[in-house]
């Protein structure tokens, strides 16, 4: 198993390196002079700009700057400084990350807590009235843009009922509406995936075998069908978690939560390309770690995959 983890890490690193290189390169060719930006608005003389360029190290060859940027990130976890206000991007990211992580984690938890039982229920009672209602409701939720859902929630629960705050991140209750808004769309898709996976498993032969052993129906469903249906669902949960990390971006803007997404949007709008690249690479890191954990869980849950990995792990050792 440890060998498998190492192998997955070895695959992850080149991908992240490539992400870093590509993002830095792309941002480097974006029109607009970073030196001008760093000086702020107003008219600056050519000499001033040139001095700033020199100070920012922009006059060195591209390849040198790229190498420095990448090695700073990967060896020292240093994302450089913001072009706009000169703050250290790493600290800004670290300060903001807990907010984004809270939204993503709460959202995935809400999705699992509601989506899993609902998906199981609708699969076990396929074609029942409850199933049909759930199908229509989830289809609608799936089509609702999260920022619109967020605005409707604010309208109802903050402005009309005055139950919950509409912006900020002071305490946990500030995260209730953002979590719901971020979850609804994904929740719909997740429920349908659980239902489909469960339906497939429920009609499989080994579930019939379990029933023929005389097990009560709930043991058949929860003891035999569910563990098998959950294996593909694990991957789905990982993907959803990742996309909720992305979805948090919009939610942070709507609810004025000082998370990474808000930082990203602000830095794009301010043309602060250092901060922008930093945010994107940071998100890619977080995303990669989530995917890694998902893969590991998956391998742990499915004895067939586990056996396969153990075998391939041995092969890797032989070749290495």
């Amino acid at each position, binding site marked *: 198993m440890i060998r498998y983890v190492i192998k997955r890490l070895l695959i992850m690193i080149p991908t992240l390196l490539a*992400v870093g290189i590509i993002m830095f390169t*792309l941002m480097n060719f974006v029109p607009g002079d970073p030196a001008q930006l760093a000086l702020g608005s107003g008219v600056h003389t050519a000499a001033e700009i040139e001095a700033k360029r020199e100070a920012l190290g922009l006059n060195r060859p591209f390849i040198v700057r790229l190498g420095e940027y990448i090695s700073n990130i990967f060896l020292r976890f240093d994302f450089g400084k913001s072009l706009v206000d000169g703050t250290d991007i790493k600290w800004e990211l670290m300060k903001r990350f807990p907010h984004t992580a809270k939204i993503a984690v709460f959202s995935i938890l809400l999705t699992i807590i509601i989506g899993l039982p609902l998906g199981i229920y609708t699969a076990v009672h396929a074609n029942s009235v409850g199933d049909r209602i759930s199908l229509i409701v989830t289809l609608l939720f799936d*089509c609702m*843009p999260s920022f*619109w859902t967020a605005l*409707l929630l604010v309208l109802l629960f903050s402005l009309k009922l005055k139950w919950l705050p509409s912006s900020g991140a002071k305490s946990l209750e500030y995260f209730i509406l953002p979590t719901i808004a971020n979850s609804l769309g994904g929740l719909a898709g997740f429920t349908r995936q659980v239902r489909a996976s469960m*339906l497939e498993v429920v009609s499989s032969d080994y579930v019939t075998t379990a029933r023929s052993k005389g097990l009560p129906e709930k043991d058949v469903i929860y003891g035999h069908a569910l563990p098998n249906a959950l294996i593909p669902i694990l991957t789905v949960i990982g993907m959803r978690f990742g996309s909720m990390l992305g979805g948090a971006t*919009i939610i942070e803007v709507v609810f004025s939560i000082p998370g990474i997404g808000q930082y*990203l949007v602000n830095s794009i709008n301010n043309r602060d390309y250092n901060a922008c690249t930093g945010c994107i690479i940071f998100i890619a890191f977080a995303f*990669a770690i989530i995917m890694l954990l998902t893969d590991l869980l998956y391998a742990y849950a499915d004895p067939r995959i586990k056996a396969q990995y153990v075998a391939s792990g041995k092969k890797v050792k032989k070749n290495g």
Partner: protein
Amino acid sequence: MADKKKKRGKRGGHHIDPSIKPGSFKYIWASVSHNKGAVFGMIFLAAIIILSLLSPYICRYSYSATDFINMKSWPSAEHLFGTDDLGRDILSRILFGARYTLIIGILSTLLSAVLGILMGAIAGFFGGVIDAFLMRFLDIFQAFPSLVLAMAFCAVFGTGVDKCILALGITGIPGFARLMRANILRIRNTEYIEAATTVNCPTWKIILKHIIPNAVSPVIVEIAMSISRNGLASSSLSFLGLGVQEPKPEWGAMLASTRNYIRDFPYMVIIPGIFIVLTVLSFNLLGDAFRDALDPNFKE
């Protein structure tokens, strides 16, 4: 007994003439046109496209005309959907703005479909180093949540309809490429291809007669789903100020510019949202109907 018959009728769904061959265009049409959701989707989309094209001629107000006397007026006979903070008629803006969501959704999907299918097909056919290289390359794209990737491209390209199409189009490439690659690998390993090979069926004929028809169905379904996804994403980007920008009446941008008035004038926010939902829903329903029609083996 009568009760049971009713139940079966409901579940059976399709009442397609059994003489029509599954897979033929006639069958697909018969199946899709029997699907209530798909019919709703087609009617809504046809209506919104026609109305959007005709909107400069049929609407009483221009989408961009400001009217400072009738600012923020609630829906009325005069302004069916009311006016926004600058007194612009929301109905005219909604109808005109439909084109952005549709154009961005459709063109970006086309871009990712063409490039993605090409890459996936190449990777699937040739395998080996080319396959490994292309797939590793696509891994880089998939190292982000797709919305963040689209935002990154928007940051690089800038704002505007064309940039937005480009950003969403590139973001969608890996999905199509992987779908197509999996498709080709799946079909190549089936026994009917083996059978065709053993009877000396020429390669071009295998590709034309066996692989393409079998690879096409999932792609069509994915196209419908991708249009709906990209339509949604384009309004999200515009809402964030990264896609289409004011004063263009893109629905997401409209929401962004009026969201501060939500407390007193909620119609400004609710109405554009409903249109986003209906458009996305229409494409989703069409995609579902196509999936049922194209794949007779597909069960819910």
